[in-house]
């Protein structure tokens, strides 16, 4: 009971923050503080939920006291709880950063309420135990993200946002079609109930078709090959604090949905679904990293790297072994922290030098050496250097691939890692090492960046180092999440066998 309320509060807190920041819209300072308070409160509640889940096992909430297949079910396993904590960390970091970045015009464009609606959608997607509710949370996210993308109101932002929304609506439509097919085949949309009904479905072909449609829908949200083209078109346009949340969280909700769908719901035909996922993973990694190599704008480079990294997470899922899923979960956690941080650092670098375009900036190593250190940590973690967090994530995944003899995917993962270093070195050489084209004084010292911007960057970088140096406890949690994913029977029992 109490645990169920804790899960509910993960949703109630962002709703209250949305309402409170809307009411305080005319009082800028109060709105900023309420927004920040809300994001840290969400962090506290989600950490408490994770502690409870790790201590007592899965938390199931039947909202409205309606029993499982009929009501709105929230089912929180270790993966869901971990993802919620990471979402709250990203939200808190980016809203803190936002205090230094957004001006009065952006605030008036509803930056704070929309940010909390976005967090609500993300947390809802991680907690829900129902396919249709997952769709609803996706919509909540999409609406909020459309608003957030256009917060600055520039032409480029509206251009990016229109592409983003149009292509995401296509994914949404596929999602709905898949939902309809699955409902027609199984007569239910509750995750646990679908999982229970799938073995009894006689029309296997249609079931696989529905699963593939769902894969395409989630794949588009996750930006995998060949459905990633909306991401580089949109992610470099919004405010830095907005694009950092997007980069960290939004595609990962798609990955989470893929993991949920292809561990719990559709394991009836792995010869087709999981082989397809493995090919998608390999192609996503390679195209993403090659796309990044061709870019010269910091956030565009980083956006292409999101795509390439998504490939790693899907790879672990496609391998469908315990080690593979451990790798995927570990990678998700590591990636969200690192990627959000790189976007924030790019924002500070642009603020100190005047542009995101690598050709037009430089000299940061001389003017702001500590920013170099802060960049070095997530950048080399992304590339997989020991002892940073990315090294362990990649190590686990490559081992998982070698264990079952998928040599080519292991090779693809390693080559992608190598090419990632190339892109990171490019940003380093251009933004930090070479002198600023407009003269030495054009690169400003770090002291000119607001402290509220540097605090979240330092905290996230510290997190990356901690995960790298003390990987064992994180690995244990990832292992537990992976083992739960591979045991759908206990998920089904927890949801349908009476609420705790």
């Amino acid at each position: 009971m109490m645990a169920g309320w804790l899960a509910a509060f993960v949703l109630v807190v962002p709703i209250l923050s949305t309402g409170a920041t809307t009411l305080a819209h005319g009082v800028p300072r109060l709105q900023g503080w309420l927004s920040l308070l809300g994001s840290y409160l969400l962090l506290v509640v989600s950490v408490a939920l994770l502690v409870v889940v790790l201590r007592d096992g899965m938390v199931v909430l039947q909202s409205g006291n309606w029993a499982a297949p009929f009501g709105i079910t929230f089912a929180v396993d270790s993966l869901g709880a971990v993802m919620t904590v990471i979402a709250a960390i990203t939200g808190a970091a980016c809203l803190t950063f936002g205090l230094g970045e957004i001006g009065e015009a952006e605030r008036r464009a509803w930056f704070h309420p929309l940010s909390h609606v976005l967090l609500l959608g993300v947390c809802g997607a991680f907690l829900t135990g129902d396919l249709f509710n997952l769709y609803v949370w996706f919509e909540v996210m999409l609406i909020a993200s459309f608003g957030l993308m256009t917060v600055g109101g520039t032409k480029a932002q509206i251009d990016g946002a229109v592409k983003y929304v149009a292509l995401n609506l296509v994914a949404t439509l596929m999602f709905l079609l898949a939902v309809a097919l699955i409902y027609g085949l199984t007569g239910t949309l509750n995750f646990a109930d679908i999982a229970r009904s799938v073995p009894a479905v006689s029309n296997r072909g249609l079931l696989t078709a529905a699963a593939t449609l769902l894969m395409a829908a989630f794949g588009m949200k996750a930006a995998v090959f060949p459905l990633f083209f909306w991401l580089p078109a949109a992610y470099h346009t919004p405010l830095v604090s907005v694009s950092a949340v997007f980069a960290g969280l939004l595609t990962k909700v798609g990955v989470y949905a893929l993991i949920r769908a292809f561990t719990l719901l559709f394991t009836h035909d792995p010869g087709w679904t999981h082989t397809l996922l493995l090919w998608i993973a390999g192609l996503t990694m390679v195209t993403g990293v090659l796309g990044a190599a061709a870019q010269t704008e910091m956030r565009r480079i980083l956006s292409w790297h999101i795509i390439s990294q998504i490939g790693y997470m899907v790879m672990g899922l496609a391998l469908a072994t315990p080690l593979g899923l451990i790798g995927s979960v570990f990678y998700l956690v590591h990636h969200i922290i690192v990627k959000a941080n790189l976007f924030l650092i790019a924002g500070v670098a642009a603020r100190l030098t005047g542009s995101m375009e690598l050709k037009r900036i430089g000299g940061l190593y001389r003017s702001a050496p500590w920013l170099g250190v802060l960049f070095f940590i997530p950048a080399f973690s992304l590339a997989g250097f020991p002892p940073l967090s990315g090294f362990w994530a990649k190590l686990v995944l490559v081992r998982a691939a070698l264990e079952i003899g998928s040599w080519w995917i292991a090779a693809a993962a390693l080559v992608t890692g190598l090419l990632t270093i190339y892109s990171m070195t490019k940003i380093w050489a251009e933004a930090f090492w070479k002198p600023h084209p407009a003269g030495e004084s054009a690169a400003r010292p770090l002291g000119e960046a607001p402290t509220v911007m540097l605090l979240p960057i330092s905290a996230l970088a510290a997190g990356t180092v901690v995960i790298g140096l003390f990987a064992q406890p994180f690995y244990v949690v990832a292992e537990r999440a992976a083992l739960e994913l591979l045991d759908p029977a206990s998920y089904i029992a927890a949801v349908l066998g009476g609420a705790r």
Partner: protein
Amino acid sequence: MSSLILRAGTRILAPMMIMLSLFLLWRGHNLPGGGFIGGLVATSAIALQGIAFGPASMRRTLVFSPAVIAGAGVLIAALSALPAALAGLPFFTGLWLKLDLGNGAVLPLSTPLLFDIGVYLTVIGGVCTLIAALEEEPALDDVETGG
């Protein structure tokens, strides 16, 4: 727009639409209707007022800034989920309070109704924010200062 017919018509229609919206809100729990549809009907009435008499009169009708109404609505809807905690029941469980008005008449009050009222206000506030933004675009700078 300045039209005598529209203004005369609005004076009669708008109050009736508001009453209809409250009726829809009230019956919505078990019959077609509810906070969302009621809120939309109320918003239509307010929008009609705005078209007939200008955006300033729409703001006067609303009394509070639309943003405040929407924010209050979200808070009320969220709060309606919480009394279940005091009763030791799961999140969003509906609780009913049946007031005896005498003569066998019973007034049922419930947390679902509270939720619907929250939705009603959110819809009015949200849609009116959009309408106000479209109607008052040049003067966008001095709106939303009422909060």
